[in-house]
């Protein structure tokens, strides 16, 4: 048992895979979250993405449906 046993890797999808996923689904079927800063969001973001800067995420979990697949970038 070492400190690293307390961590499990998260899933990462390529941009292409996410593009395919978004094309196949209706917007109500997933959460799409942009976790960058507002300035970056304004410069361009994925269609339908909801802005929640990463530092605010722990306090704003209730805004997302945890039963839907969730994509973050």
């Amino acid at each position, binding site marked *: 048992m070492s400190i690293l046993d307390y961590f499990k890797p998260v899933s990462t999808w390529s941009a292409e895979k*996410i593009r395919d996923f978004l094309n196949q689904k209706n917007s109500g079927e997933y959460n799409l979250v942009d*976790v960058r800063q507002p300035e970056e969001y304004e410069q361009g973001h994925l269609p339908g993405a909801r802005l929640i800067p990463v*530092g605010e*995420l722990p306090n704003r979990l209730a805004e997302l449906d945890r039963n839907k697949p969730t994509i973050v970038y």
Partner: protein
Amino acid sequence: MRSRAAASILTGAGFQEVHSMGGGMRAWKGLVAEGIPEAGMAYFTPATRPEEMVALAWLLEDGMRKFYESLAQIMQDQEAKGTFENLKRSEENHKTTLWKLFEEISGRTPTHEFPNKVIPAEPRGDVMEGGMLVSEALEWSRGKALKDILELCISLETNSYDLYLKMEQKVETNKAKQVFKTLSEEEKNHLDRLTSMFGKNI
């Protein structure tokens, strides 16, 4: 990189299926994605016993302190240097706070047994939030723009913040709850400072 921290928080909060986009917006636009440290951000499995939680937090704070100390040394930018020195001192204080909390919770004086008898350190080196090795993160930071380094720090601090919020809910005594609440507030403060500096460097 921030998206991996976000994915880690969501998975830890019980979201059924979470994926982060590798390379972020740069990859989406077809630009070449920059390499991200391999260990990346990882989902944290909550420690169950209070003593375990405190030892884990202590080890992570120690890793963060070493990371900030090294960053302060290599920084050219004076504002960034000052900020990292400040953050280093703050993480040092957190270690002291956790040390005292261990004494309270366990009723024992922390000796050589703490933290490494409670949670053995990683033999390959110091570990920070997300399971990232300090040495890997430092190697990655060399030659990177301040903005990229700040992004990594924001990801790490967000995970720390989230970890302390979780720990506050898990521990039972009011004293321990108060300690984790204070720690989470301070990490949030770090996060706000880093985010503000990041905003100036976008």
